[in-house]
């Protein structure tokens, strides 16, 4: 697994080597942000330029991986803001509207037994990419990257309560997308991951 370093690397070379360990997952995250390989590549490269330039600001004893993801998301936000200030505002408005409407959908006939079946990664990735940006980011950082709510709040620059509600809505929307896909009997209709605790 990817080392969750809790201590700062001791010198510049260690810092670089440790930071570069996260290149692949950072690129995968950049792909989910940009949904475009060329932009993801530029974004990751910019992230490392900033990380190396500001390595002196990295606080010993904090999490290098979380720090790099914060830079990645800040860089992406700034680009989006530069690209179109208005679009960002509209987007966040849409997100809140979608948040208000999501999750209360029609009850699904939930089977008693839970069958965890593997869905094709491509379907899952496509369903993720269809989520509104804010939900996709929150769900990805929590469920794929396993960051804490507080770390995600810092990365996305939103309050922790917002992070949790975005994760919640994002997961429900993802589930609904996958279970409503035409040829996708894919989902673990997990009325209870929960159930295992009974």
């Amino acid at each position, binding site marked *: 697994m990817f080392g969750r370093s809790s201590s700062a690397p001791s010198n510049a070379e260690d810092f670089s080597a440790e930071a570069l360990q996260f*290149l*692949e997952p950072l690129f995968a995250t950049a792909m989910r942000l940009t949904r475009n390989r060329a932009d993801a590549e530029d974004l990751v490269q910019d992230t490392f330029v900033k990380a*190396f330039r500001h390595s002196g600001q990295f606080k010993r004893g904090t999490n290098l991986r979380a720090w790099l993801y914060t830079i990645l998301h800040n860089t992406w936000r700034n680009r989006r803001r530069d690209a179109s200030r208005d679009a960002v505002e509209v987007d966040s408005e849409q997100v809140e509207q979608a948040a208000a409407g999501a999750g209360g959908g029609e*009850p699904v006939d*939930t089977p008693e037994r839970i069958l965890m079946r593997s869905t094709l990664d491509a379907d899952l990735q496509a369903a993720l990419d269809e989520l509104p940006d804010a939900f996709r980011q929150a*769900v990805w950082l929590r469920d794929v990257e396993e960051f804490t709510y507080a770390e995600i709040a810092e990365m996305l620059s939103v309050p922790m309560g917002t992070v949790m509600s975005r994760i919640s809505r*994002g*997961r429900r929307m993802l589930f609904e997308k996958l279970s409503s896909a035409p040829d996708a009997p894919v989902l673990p209709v*997990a009325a209870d991951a929960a159930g295992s605790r009974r």
Partner: protein
Amino acid sequence: MKPNCRRICDLLTQYADGTLPDAQQGEVQRHLDACPPCRVIAGKECGARQLLRASADRLRAEPLPPGLRTRCQALAAGQSTAYPWLRPSIRFAIAALLILFVGALLSIVTRQSDALLAAQLTADHVKCFGLFRPAEGTSLDAAQAQRMLAERFGLDVHVPPSSTEGSVDLLNARRCLYADGRIPHLMYEANGQDMSLFVLEGESRAPAEFTAFGHHTRIWSRGGNTFVLITPKADESVAAAARYVAAEAH
């Protein structure tokens, strides 16, 4: 939704993550046992989380674009000296930026100037070799570079491959800023020297040669595109390589 259901739903994210204190976890569980609508919502949340956790390693294993790791390593190597501002790459970059700035101002006056074109692209040549030189012994497949040009620029350009003629090695393919857009930049090593080939799509210019900023620039056009070749010197050591590239690029 009943007030109690609403309160339980607010806890479902932490419930699915298993981060609730035991007492609350039990309370949510008891509610779900008794409340089918909430159980459905919890099922969606837990199901999506389980699926993502099970697929996380594969989702995270996105194949890297060619050269990205090398470039990031080069950035790291560039940052590890004691006095960052003294590093040659930064000096090159500052010089290149100054030249680009002056160039950009001048380009407003005369976009067609060959000397200006030579100066701007010489700056890019210096900057890119300063910052994005691939690791020793790395070379790039011409077909791969060609695909990149086609995908990113819609350019149909024949990329001269590495060749023993003139000891030419294709090292890297990048995009560089020029005038209003980005143009392809092919980085070669020719007989041990850095050599750059730039392509300006849809432009034709009369053949020209310049020496500026200690570099030699050759400009020519073919098939509606203009090619600009930059070498450190005009001497014999790169003449064969320059002839090879000029004959191959089209």
